[in-house]
């Protein structure tokens, strides 16, 4: 097909990189933002600007909160096609109640799964979610969008395209293509070790762009490779290779039965009612056992299974704050009596590897330096892809201008939308978050519209201004959107001050880092955008002084 392996790899890298690079930009950029998703949530929902809280008492706080929960209209409607028969108004047979928290969470998310009578798949549950203030169990209103963990994070792994999980599939294919792009990039890069530190910004544009592309790709190669790989593995069993629920469900069910009998944790309800002993006492006992094992820790995950049934049990898991694994060291108690059923034994080597691989991606650990290094890695990946687009356009625009073709122009406009446009969209939702009235009904939907609207506007602007590219000149949209980024970022900081009073001097003085961090990052974005706009303006002036001048300047630097 291709004359050589290197040329095959070059074709693959160029064309798959171009087409799926747009998706990968989103995955890397929103992934970088997701490192601090809970901090962005606090900026976006001022009512939650409190300190991070530990798992609260079940008896005092959680039980009344759980008892008030019911599945939403949407959850019930989504369930309807999988039910043969009428669906009840109220759901009182609880499959499981659970609460999950990390050291960065000021508010607590509760999950409740209810048994659905007449469900086609026996045992399938309909779910409800709630967010409460852990100090008093007060429910937080439903339509406060968690811009970080509830929008940027799902954007990162699924583009918020939920229809038949299409977005998750697209991102999954992109992740695989990322791995292929890394492998093919290494094959194409002839001097990978000698040019490891090479970046020559003074040279001709094509050379310096390629240098930066290679640098950001190679220097963080382990990061890029492992994040793409572990991202695929996290969703493998549920979405990409769901063999346990399809081809191999026989083995899956066999295993569930064996596990239930080995561990003493019943898989099914008994059908007889059972009481619930003091859960706080069980949690305290679990914490004592961890401390005895030299692993004193906080509760990360609390699950009550088969609530109200004789087979009910309570599981307490330790938060993996000090290590990569998310939660572990589960201890299980019989719900009716509080007696110990089982302490989870040390994980198998394969399970430990699985915990390490998924944990390194999902980051529930406490390590601020590592988090910021992750942001650096994510941004390096975004720069790698962005410079890939710029290189593609620069390499072809002169030839396309001569041939009267529009290809370079189209790619350039799409690249503007994918790079500066995407940043603008993220800023747009933050600005809208502060501008919209606090109790606007459907506020979350308005915020999402602000995001997509800003992005579409950026795309239209980029397309409208892209005519010069067809004459081998730069697209002014890059500079104009850089200016817009500076303006929006500053606006977001000012609006936070005006609407909440939590200006930088106050948040820095009280040491409230979540909000101070977001504001400082926004200021940094504004500064970088402003500096970029200035540099682009200077380059524009050189081009405007005449193509001969610009070409001469380039030749002198080459």
């Amino acid at each position, binding site marked *: 097909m291709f004359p050589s392996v290197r040329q095959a790899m070059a074709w693959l890298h160029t064309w798959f990189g171009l087409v799926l690079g747009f998706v990968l930009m989103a995955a890397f950029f929103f992934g970088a933002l997701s490192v601090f998703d809970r901090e962005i949530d606090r900026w976006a929902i001022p009512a939650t600007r409190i300190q991070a809280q530990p798992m609260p008492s079940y008896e005092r706080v959680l039980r009344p909160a759980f008892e008030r929960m019911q599945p939403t209209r949407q959850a019930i409607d989504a369930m309807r096609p999988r039910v043969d028969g009428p669906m009840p108004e109220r759901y009182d047979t609880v499959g499981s109640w659970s609460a999950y928290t990390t050291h960065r969470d000021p508010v607590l998310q509760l999950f409740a799964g209810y048994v659905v009578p007449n469900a086609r798949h026996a045992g399938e549950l309909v779910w409800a979610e709630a967010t409460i203030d852990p100090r008093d169990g007060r429910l937080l209103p439903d339509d406060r969008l968690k811009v970080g963990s509830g929008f940027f994070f799902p954007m990162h792994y699924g583009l918020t395209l939920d229809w038949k999980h299409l977005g998750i599939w697209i991102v999954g294919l992109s992740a695989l293509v990322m791995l292929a792009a890394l492998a093919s990039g290494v094959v194409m890069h002839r001097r990978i070790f000698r040019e490891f530190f090479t970046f020559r910004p003074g040279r001709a544009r094509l050379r310096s762009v390629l240098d930066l592309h290679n640098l950001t790709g190679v220097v963080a190669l382990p990061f890029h490779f492992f994040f793409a790989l572990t991202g695929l593995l996290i969703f493998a069993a549920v979405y990409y290779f769901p063999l346990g629920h399809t*081809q191999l469900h026989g083995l899956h069910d066999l295993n569930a039965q064996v596990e239930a009998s080995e561990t003493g944790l019943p898989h099914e309800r008994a059908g007889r009612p059972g009481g619930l002993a003091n859960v706080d006492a069980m949690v305290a006992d679990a914490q004592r056992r961890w401390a005895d094992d030299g692993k004193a820790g906080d509760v990360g995950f609390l699950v009550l299974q088969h609530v109200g049934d004789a087979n009910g049990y309570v599981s307490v898991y330790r938060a993996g704050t000090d290590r990569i694994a998310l939660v572990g060291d589960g201890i299980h108690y019989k719900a009716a009596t509080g007696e110990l059923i089982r302490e989870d034994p040390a994980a198998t080597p394969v399970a430990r590897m699985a915990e390490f691989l998924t944990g390194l991606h999902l980051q529930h650990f406490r390590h601020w330096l590592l988090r910021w290094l992750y942001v650096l890695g994510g941004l390096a990946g975004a720069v790698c892809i962005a410079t890939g687009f710029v290189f593609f356009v620069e390499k072809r625009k002169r030839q396309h201008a001569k041939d009267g073709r529009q290809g370079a122009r189209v790619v350039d406009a799409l690249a503007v939308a994918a790079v500066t446009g995407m940043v603008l969209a993220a800023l747009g939702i933050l600005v809208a978050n502060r501008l919209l009235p606090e109790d606007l009904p459907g506020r979350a939907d308005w915020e999402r519209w602000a995001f997509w609207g800003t992005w579409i506007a950026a795309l239209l602007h980029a397309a409208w201004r892209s005519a010069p590219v067809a004459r081998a000149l730069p697209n002014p949209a890059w500079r104009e959107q850089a200016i817009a980024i500076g303006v929006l970022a500053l606006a977001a900081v000012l609006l936070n001050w005006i609407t909440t009073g939590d200006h930088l001097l106050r948040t820095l003085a009280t040491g409230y880092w979540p909000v101070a961090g977001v504001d400082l990052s926004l200021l940094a974005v504004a500064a970088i955008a402003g500096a970029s706009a200035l540099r682009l303006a200077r380059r524009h002036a050189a081009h405007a002084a005449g193509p001969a001048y610009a070409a001469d300047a380039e030749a002198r630097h080459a």
Partner: protein
Amino acid sequence: MSRTASDFPSTRRHGQRLQLASRVLAAILGGYAFAWGLVAASASLMFAAGMGFHDAEFLASLAGVLAFLLAFLWAFVARRGWLVWAVLAGGGALLAGIGSFVQSLLV
């Protein structure tokens, strides 16, 4: 001597485009089929050998993703397009068959 279709540049380009499209489909669909088959075969065999199901599933998924990557790259490097389809689709089906067979022995 009479001229054939491949003497005309436009039909040659058309033929090349079809070949390329076939390789792209083989890389994506064939690669996925092969990966699925590998996950099925290795998960069932490892479970049969005594590993816990979830452990076997995870390890098999790791193998599957890496195999998908290799299959994807090979699809563009291989000389013969039909061979790519045969190995990836055919191999995937065979491996998937092994997975179901092992399951049938245990359940």
